[in-house]
């Protein structure tokens, strides 16, 4: 009887797996991506998906990529990693071993990007990613096949100090730092901001670290208020950033400058807070107003197609896909080594600015200071890029 059950099950499993093997035309160039399309980071994933697809669609509409002299279409396979690094790794393994992708595009946030990147690296399949701060990316290992274009944490961390100095805002120079214990939170809030505070003449009256998913900030806020901090720098993800601002309002704490990295970036932050978001600063690596090829058009295309407000993440994902597609074009081959060598030679201006990878496989994106004003992110620093005047003090 066991024999019969075993045979039936084996047949069923084999049939299911046979059906599951995706059908790709033999002459397609297959690239893959595992993205957080569900789970806590689904917001980021949807922007990335749009950016990746747009870049691939544009190449296909132009006839595809010439491989050994013959034009081939590009097939992009995207899998949902449910915001789980285990799923990212497993998706990447499947994309490489089953779908035979020639290269990969990255996920979002260090945990997810690294999970997939390590698989790509071991399989010697090139991966181009954004959405992973460069120091966090470099800290994992010496990369040979993975390339990251995103912001550099020390530059992002320096933006509020430089902006305050250049804009001449007057405060008592007492600074409170609140940061989560995630990879970039520990680097920016735990190390870089305290060092920069000293350099720019600020007194750090409080430095509080909290778990990424913390939801109660009343004691942290009360301490900063009691110590008279007029400048507050925060590094937290969006739900926590929203909670912090609301709890500050409840506690009647109004510093003159409030800068929230990471969490204040998506439009959902401003939508959730309404007027409370006014005056909040956040570092940005992209804006449709940037003077780079296609920047304004990209945001317009996103908004007209999706009827949603655009995000910075459409730009780094779109640029990452373009870098990879350009490399495949330059290689004229689907050979991983040739594509990887072509990525290394990237030196071109994309929608996010000039992209050229250094010896650590990283390319820094230029940083600006954005401020939420009536639900819109306005560039207030540097002066050369500004699209509006600073709102000071925090209303």
């Amino acid at each position: 009887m066991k024999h019969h059950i075993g045979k039936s099950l084996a047949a069923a499993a084999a049939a299911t797996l046979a059906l599951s093997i995706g059908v790709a035309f033999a002459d397609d160039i297959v690239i893959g991506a595992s993205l957080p399309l569900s789970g806590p980071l689904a917001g980021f994933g949807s922007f990335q998906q749009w950016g990746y697809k747009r870049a691939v669609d544009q190449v296909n509409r132009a006839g595809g990529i010439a491989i050994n002299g013959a034009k081939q279409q590009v097939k992009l396979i995207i899998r949902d990693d449910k915001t789980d690094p285990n799923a990212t790794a497993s998706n990447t393994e499947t994309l490489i071993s089953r779908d035979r992708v020639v290269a990969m595009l990255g996920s979002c946030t260090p945990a997810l990007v690294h999970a997939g990147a390590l698989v790509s690296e071991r399989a010697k399949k090139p991966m181009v990613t954004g959405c992973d701060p460069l120091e966090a990316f470099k800290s994992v290992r010496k990369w040979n096949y993975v390339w990251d274009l995103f912001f550099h944490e020390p530059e992002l961390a320096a933006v509020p100090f430089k902006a305050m100095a250049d804009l001449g805002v007057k405060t008592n120079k007492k600074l409170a730092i609140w940061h989560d214990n995630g990879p970039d939170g520990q680097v920016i809030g735990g190390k870089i901001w305290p060092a920069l505070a000293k350099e720019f003449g600020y007194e750090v009256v409080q430095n509080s670290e909290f778990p990424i998913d913390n939801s109660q900030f009343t004691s942290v806020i009360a301490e900063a208020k009691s110590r008279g901090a007029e400048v507050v720098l925060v590094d937290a993800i969006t739900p926590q950033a929203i909670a912090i601002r609301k709890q500050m309002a409840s506690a009647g704490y109004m510093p003159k400058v409030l800068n929230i990295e990471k969490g204040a970036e998506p439009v959902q932050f401003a939508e959730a807070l309404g007027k409370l978001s006014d005056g909040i600063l956040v570092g940005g690596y992209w804006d449709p107003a940037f003077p780079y090829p296609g920047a304004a058009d990209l945001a317009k295309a996103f908004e007209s197609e999706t009827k949603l407000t655009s995000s910075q993440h459409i730009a780094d994902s779109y640029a990452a896909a373009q870098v990879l597609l350009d490399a495949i074009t330059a290689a004229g081959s689907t050979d991983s080594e040739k594509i990887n060598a072509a990525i290394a030679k990237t030196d071109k201006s994309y929608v996010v600015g000039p992209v050229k990878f250094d010896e650590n496989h990283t390319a820094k994106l230029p940083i600006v200071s954005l401020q939420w004003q009536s639900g819109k992110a306005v560039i207030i620093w540097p002066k050369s890029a500004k699209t509006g005047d600073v709102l000071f003090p925090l209303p």
Partner: protein
Amino acid sequence: MSDAIVSSPRVGSASTGGLVEVAVLVGALGVLWFVPDFAGDYWLQLGFRTCVYLVLAQGWNLMAGSAGLVSLGTSSFIGLGAYAALGLLNRVGAPLPLALLICATAGGVLAALVSPALFRLRGLYFTVGTLALAELLRLLMVNVSAFGGATGIILQEDPPALPVLFRYVLVLAFLASLTITLCTRTRVSVILRAVRDDEDAAAQMGIRPYRVKLGAFVLASALAAMAGGIQAAKLGAIEPYGMFGLQWSIDVLSMVIIGGVGLRLGPLVGALFVVALGEALADYPEAHTAIAGVILIVLIRFAPQGIVGLAVKLPLIGRVQA
């Protein structure tokens, strides 16, 4: 229900059945050992995933199906094993097999340490208690910087090649299956089910329920920790949200329910089914979640003994059995 499938040893036939089962396991190990010599990476990846799930499901089935301990704390031990393994590999340079052995010990010790508190709870309260344990450990890892905080730990050296990892996990799956066979083909099975069916009555019969439950809990936890250890070695980077996530516990529970709770072949069938379904619907994530949910609901409502239980009732198989 078939005695050949259900873990119910009968005097006389039990030892023969047990020997056959052990022989089948040894044969399967012998055949599958050579799979890396001819199978591609994709099949090895699937094999690895199936073996990890099988190790977890075997332990959970023993605990829930045989001893009545329905746990949602599997992720506690997976996470513990993952952190222990990478800690040992990074800091001590321990060989992977030794690291996995220590992971198993750590899992067993943790289970023994928390059991006095957890075993005060019965039924649903025990389940909630195990869930709290997983959450507690996750928060501990997130908050203690010595464990890498929310950043987690990265394996400093590259893990062994996939064929090597496959063979390691194959041995783990073999050992897990062998151990469970020994438990279910001996008097231990009767004792476990006596405790599961009525703890107080079992105690009246001279059985010590605490020790019995402790044995099942420690064994299942040791297996989960080893599975976590090898999974971490393969990933090369771990963090608390992924390794202590509730999803692990839900996956294991689903596998055993789909396969058949308390049935000897349940974990294997459940693991194969979940991996195959996941691959079949990989391009349709929404459909995957919905279909998996519907399957669970239908099975719980119409076939509480899972696929294996259902298969046993099929006329063809029933006749063969008769």
